[in-house]
């Protein structure tokens, strides 16, 4: 880390007034209760490392690792300290010193090469059980995973390969650099960035998003060469690697955008962590990319925001028309659905109202709030892999909140939360509770209308 970035980091650290209010927001502090688990304590340690009062020891490194990067502390901070930026930078220092470890190094190598990642995911679909039955030491030993069921088996085909095969009527565009799906009457264009989890693990979420967008008259363009958004690298201290991925994505986006009927279409996300990452691209990329990164960052939008941009009523009317039946007013039996606020959507982007408005608009759905809808699910990307017990405790609390509502389905707006919730509900013996992305429930209505 160079001097000017160090100075900027110190400037950011100085804004923490040590009020301790982050304690109320932090899911890790709630379980652990120690100062070094919460942002204030971590910032004290980071500041001391920077001015040489303490070394960046393994204890300190481990304290920095024990964070979900959920950004709840940043949202709760009276002084507006960008705790997530500070932590990512501190992890960069830790990585300079200790490296990333075997597992992360291997994972990052794959994430940095989209083609390799796709191949690995393809192979992984066949070899899944094998990779997660470790018996040797080192990083793999640390995982201590439950046998084979942390994530569902990988689907055989990714979203991008299914679209490439013409599913939903997708066609190649922009000289093969994008795929395009068009509605009967085009009323606008969006670029959809599915992200890795949706592409490789939950392609049905991507397909659902496309169906809903089509039903609203949006032409959907998907860059065919998306790279990882950079989040896993950035939060683990590989800022340069994340920056290169950002540049790759920006270049694909630029050519995919050329396929759009109008200029500068919105970039729609079904993964709030990806969206957050894209918003941070201006600070990640090299200088020649910053202008484009800034311009794109302004167009980043969560799908729930995009769908309700003209008000939920209009969306409802459109959806009802697409479904060929009345919406909110219909009197059939109602199923109870509850909604989990993903940290990177609710805390980081402040999006809480729109997904609920969408769910309430669904015919036959009664939305019932759980005790703490904003409580973290414990996923935190790779957090669960390295802190299984802590992740389990946080997630167990969430599973309890969900089951207490007696909802048949829990909806959420984040693929990582979705996978974690499935795992936690299953561990709690409640695998009968459906876990769906909000857009999947919307797409069901669209499908019902088509039949």
């Amino acid at each position: 880390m160079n001097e000017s970035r160090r100075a900027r980091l110190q400037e950011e650290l100085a804004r923490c007034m040590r009020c301790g209010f982050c304690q109320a927001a932090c899911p890790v502090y709630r379980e652990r209760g120690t100062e070094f688990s919460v942002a204030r304590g971590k910032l004290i340690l980071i500041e001391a490392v920077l001015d040489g009062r303490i070394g960046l020891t393994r204890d300190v490194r481990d304290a920095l690792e024990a964070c979900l990067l959920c950004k709840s502390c940043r949202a709760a901070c009276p002084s507006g300290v960008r705790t997530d930026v500070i932590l990512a930078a501190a992890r960069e220092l830790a990585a300079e010193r200790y490296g990333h470890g075997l597992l992360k190094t291997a994972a990052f190598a794959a994430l940095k090469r989209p083609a390799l990642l796709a191949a690995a995911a393809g192979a992984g679909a066949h070899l899944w059980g094998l990779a997660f039955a470790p018996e040797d030491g080192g990083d793999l030993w640390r995982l201590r995973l439950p046998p084979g069921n942390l994530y569902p088996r990988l689907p055989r085909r990714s979203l991008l390969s299914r679209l490439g095969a013409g599913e939903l009527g997708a066609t190649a565009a922009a000289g093969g650099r994008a795929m395009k799906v068009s509605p009967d009457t085009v009323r606008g264009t969006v670029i959809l960035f599915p992200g890795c989890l949706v592409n490789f693990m939950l392609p049905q979420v991507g397909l659902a998003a496309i169906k809903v967008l089509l039903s609203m008259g949006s032409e959907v363009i998907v860059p065919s060469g998306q790279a990882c958004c950079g989040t896993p690298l950035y939060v683990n201290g590989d800022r340069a690697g994340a920056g290169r991925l950002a540049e790759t994505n920006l270049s694909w986006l630029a050519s995919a955008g050329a396929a759009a009927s109008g200029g500068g279409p919105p970039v729609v996300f079904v993964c709030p962590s990806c969206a957050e990452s894209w918003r941070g691209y201006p600070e990640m990329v090299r200088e020649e990319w910053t202008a484009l990164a800034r311009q794109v960052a302004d167009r980043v939008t969560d799908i729930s925001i995009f769908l309700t941009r003209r008000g939920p009523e209009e969306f409802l009317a459109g959806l009802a028309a697409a479904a060929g039946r009345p919406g909110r007013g219909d009197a059939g039996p109602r199923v109870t659905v509850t909604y989990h606020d993903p940290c990177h959507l609710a805390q980081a982007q402040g999006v809480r109202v729109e997904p609920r408005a969408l769910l309430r608009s669904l015919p036959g759905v009664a939305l019932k709030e759980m005790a703490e809808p904003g409580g973290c699910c414990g996923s935190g990307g790779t957090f669960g892999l390295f802190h299984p017990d802590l992740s389990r405790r946080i997630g167990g609390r969430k599973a309890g909140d969900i089951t207490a509502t007696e909802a048949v389905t829990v909806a959420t707006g984040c693929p990582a939360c979705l996978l974690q919730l499935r795992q936690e509900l299953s561990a709690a013996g409640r695998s009968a509770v459906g876990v769906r992305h909000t857009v999947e429930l919307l797409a069901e209505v669209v499908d019902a209308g088509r039949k």
Partner: protein
Amino acid sequence: MGGADAVTALRRLAPSGEVFAGELALSYAEDATPGMGGRAPLAIVRPGFREEVSAVLSFCNREGIGVIPRGAGTNLSGGVVATEDQVVLAMNGLARLVEIDEANLTATVEPGLVTAALHKAVEARGLFYPPDPGSMAVSTLGGNVAEGAGGLRGLKYGVTRDYILGLQVALADGQVVRLGGKTVKNVSGYDLLRLLVGSEGTLGVVTEIIVRLVPAPEARQAMLAVFATVDAAAAAVARVIAEKVVPATLELLDDVTIRAVEEYSHCGLPAAAAAVLLAEVDGMPEAVAREGERVKAAFRAEGARKVRVANDAGERDQIWTARRTAVSALARVRPTIMLEDATVPRSRVPEMVRAVGGIARRHRLAIGTFGHAGDGNLHPTILTDRRDLEEMKRAEAAVGEIFGVALELGGTLSGEHGIGLAKRPYMRAQFGEAGIEVHRRVKGALDPRGILNPGKVIPPRSLVSQR
């Protein structure tokens, strides 16, 4: 005893808790007081059972190791700042809500329970625990007791001290005593209960607390009034009191605070106003309606340019957002804020506000003043940067002068934040040598080896008052 030996011994004494030292202990070196602390304590002990508190105290007493009891560490006067040879006793692992006794209107809690969690639990049963310090979302009840915490509702309901009925306390040598109980009346022996409340961890470590509850008010009415001068606002406060109305809350924001709040939260404060008063009356619906009218009339009679009454929960929320975000808003203006709480009799509030303005000009500092005008407990808040040592010097000089003025006006150094380390140098000015000596004798009687939060509250003999 070295750190490693101490850690080994402490692990044996607190087997269910957590004990650690080294770099991670540095995260306990500071509290919310700017510019204090920075060295890792000898060890951190986070007991899992209250018996372990006694064991640790008994050991440290024998070995002569200082012990700093700590709750959430939101102290604003350096109350839990530790040195390298001291052990921090992190009490937030003892956080059970033992019982809510609806027949006796009490709740029994462990010291690590978060204040807001108690609020939530008792309010679910139609009861009310009025003390509401600004940090209540994270502060612990043990910390509230130790600091004698106040809050916004002090004017009508009083402060933490007024709600503590019983305490279980571990003494310096580890012995446990029970003080008070569930009875409303209790005059047996000395009032040691009240001695412990606000003792800042220097006389004993609280291990269980019995608090008094009251029925939750059925109705509330909030309002906001804009004044052309601070004097007019202060006169309005005096008139409300003269009208024999005691609002639950009566808060003042000065011009610096108003501008910061409006810039930060856009809640509709007139940026040009010199002062704003926020008031809330609560109780039975009929009484609330009548009292609300009287408060409004009092505001108008003193020249309020505008009085806005909240018609529903949303509007009430908007009014209180202005007050709740005051600290946040000021904190964003500069990196460091020094939040003081010198308190004066409420009739002297206008003089205090004017004096603070003069001090700010003389020392070329930005000071925003807001706070509990109704009970004279204002928060002059110096906006500075802890890295600018020259400005920090001027800020400290200003703090000294603020204390001086408060004492001249018949007030006190601290209304609710405590003395800790930060205000020790001014204790002589308030108590004189004889008053300090009384403090020393009490401390010596309860903690003869001086292991409990050493050096806090009482100035050492060598420390000469700056005034």
